[in-house]
């Protein structure tokens, strides 16, 4: 039992860190420019496809990851310059509609280019096996993901909390007009943030590719989770995104693994087996509704 809990806790940490990569870009786009980007999940999907296709062509996971991330960043730049600049000053409804349209286009374009069957992406050979930690075996590749996630989180923290650009980003999230009035080029800043967010999406998609299937529609479910994360954490706050992502990752993974067993202890077996999975899958939404009810601005609001 302890081993199961420990293993699931590591899985939860891994899932939470990947969610953080997605949520970090989303929360900045949201926070600074007040722009809803439903197509963020599509960038994740397109990124995973880029990585998988490049890795197959080059026969190397690492090369594929590099090319895929760079390609998605380029696509992000193109989208920001042509479309998103038009959307910042529009109302939320227009942003929802335009980015919903982007989802439709992205899904169909991917289906047109790579076909409806999922793409295979193999992890690097050196990391294919399990490693032993503290008496039990855990896949080496998942440990790598945890390591990457922690490294990116640390990098983002340094960038946002300590660097000058990070200060501008925080200022932009707190009050855009005043930041502009102080002579910061918020427009260029935002292009950079958007491109950076797109690259993080591709990184998450590429890293998760060997664990999940690279397929059409993979972006939508994860997009909703990323939204839950940034709502819980508070829109515009990187710290909130990290805390929210870790909470959501842990609650979701542990809930799915342990809730049916825990319910079985207090309820009759058949009731527990039907209620357990249902409750586990809505747990994070209940959490989000609860947090919004008591703290409508999230845990770490960027606009105080």
């Amino acid at each position, binding site marked *: 039992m302890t081993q199961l809990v420990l293993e699931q806790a590591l899985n939860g940490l891994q899932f939470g860190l990947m969610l953080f990569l997605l949520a970090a870009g989303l929360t900045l786009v949201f926070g600074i420019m007040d722009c809803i980007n439903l197509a963020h999940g599509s960038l994740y999907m397109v990124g995973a496809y880029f990585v998988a296709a490049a890795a197959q062509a080059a026969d190397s996971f690492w090369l594929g990851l590099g090319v895929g991330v760079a390609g998605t960043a380029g696509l992000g730049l193109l989208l920001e310059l042509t479309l998103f600049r038009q959307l910042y000053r529009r109302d939320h409804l227009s942003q929802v509609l335009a980015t919903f*349209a982007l989802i439709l286009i992205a899904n169909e374009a991917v289906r047109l280019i790579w076909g409806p069957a999922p793409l295979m992406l193999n992890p690097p050979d050196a990391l294919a096996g399990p490693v032993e930690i503290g008496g039990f075996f855990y896949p080496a590749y998942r440990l790598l993901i945890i390591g990457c996630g922690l490294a990116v989180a640390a990098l983002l923290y340094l960038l946002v909390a300590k660097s000058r650009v990070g200060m501008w980003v925080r200022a932009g999230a707190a009050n855009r007009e005043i930041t502009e009035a102080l002579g910061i080029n918020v427009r260029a800043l935002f292009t950079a943030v958007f491109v950076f967010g797109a690259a993080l999406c591709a990184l998450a998609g590429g890293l998760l590719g060997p664990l999940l299937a690279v397929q059409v529609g993979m972006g939508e479910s994860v997009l*909703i989770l990323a939204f839950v994360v940034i709502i819980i954490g508070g829109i515009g706050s990187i710290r909130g995104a990290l805390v929210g992502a870790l909470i959501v990752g842990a609650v979701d993974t542990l809930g799915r693994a342990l809730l049916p067993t825990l319910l079985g202890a207090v309820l009759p077996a058949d009731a527990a087996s039907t209620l357990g999975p249902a409750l586990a*899958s809505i747990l994070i939404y209940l959490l989000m509704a609860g947090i919004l009810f008591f703290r409508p601005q999230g845990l770490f609001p960027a606009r105080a």
Partner: protein
Amino acid sequence: MAFYRPASWQKPFAAVTLLAALALPQCLEFIDQSYYLGLATRMLIFALAASSLNLVLGFGGMVSLGHAAFLGIGAYVAAICHQAGIQQGLLVLPLAMVVAGLFALLVGAISLRTRGVYFIMITLAFAQMVYYLFVSASAWGGDDGLPIYERLQLGSFSLVGDAALYYTALGALAFAMFLFGRLADARFGRTVQAIRENETRMEALGYPVFRYRLVCFALGGACAGLAGALLANQSGLASPSLLQWTQSGTLLVMVIIGGVGYLYGGVVGAIVLLGLEELLLSWFAHWHIVLGLLLLGIVLFAPKGVAALFGRSRD
């Protein structure tokens, strides 16, 4: 946006359209194209669903991204009644409205405490909860959905025939449009629109803003439930895919294509979107690309939608 004012020719135009819609089944039979009756029925049902969202979104100013929940709940109420052996539509249809309306009341009571982006997201979260609940409820079919083998009875009339279902959907839509039209002009509709324009001022004038919004939200949910029950009867299945968040997105798209806050916006949008789907799907399997580009075009160049031609705002 100012108060809704229909164009002077809107009422006669709607009456003529209603007459044409009444004659449609006979015309289709005459030219031997009864296949299209199913499409027409789907258009009417989605017109009802989109109009109910338009009430919430266009008149109430509440951007809800969880409207599919109410549609799906209506569908599941119909299917669960069928499973329990209840076939009387005079009972099932109102029940679907009541259940969906009560759920909307609950969602609204919690969501309407938040504003803007947070409101969009919390309505989405509630819809996702309903989706996952039905996906994992194995007693109600889980992933596969719950089938309906025999359509409802309405009084002593059976809706088994396609024409009978068509007329039921037409009747429901006509009634809803009449109701919404009267509401928009009534004290309630004026108040709700005024709240959309300036919430603080209405609050200061002493209006119970929260309660007006909540009633509007619940009414929209109830009408979506009716549409869901009809839809499940037409397709013979209450499926979790009705509850997916992309379905909420599609309903939003319908309203925006048609025209947000114009009485017939939802109707026009549903007919245009489903018509486009039918037309484009026959020659291009990847029609979503075309639809996506079209939507982008609408957002960037014609943000008021098609039905903007059907009404004008008083400045």
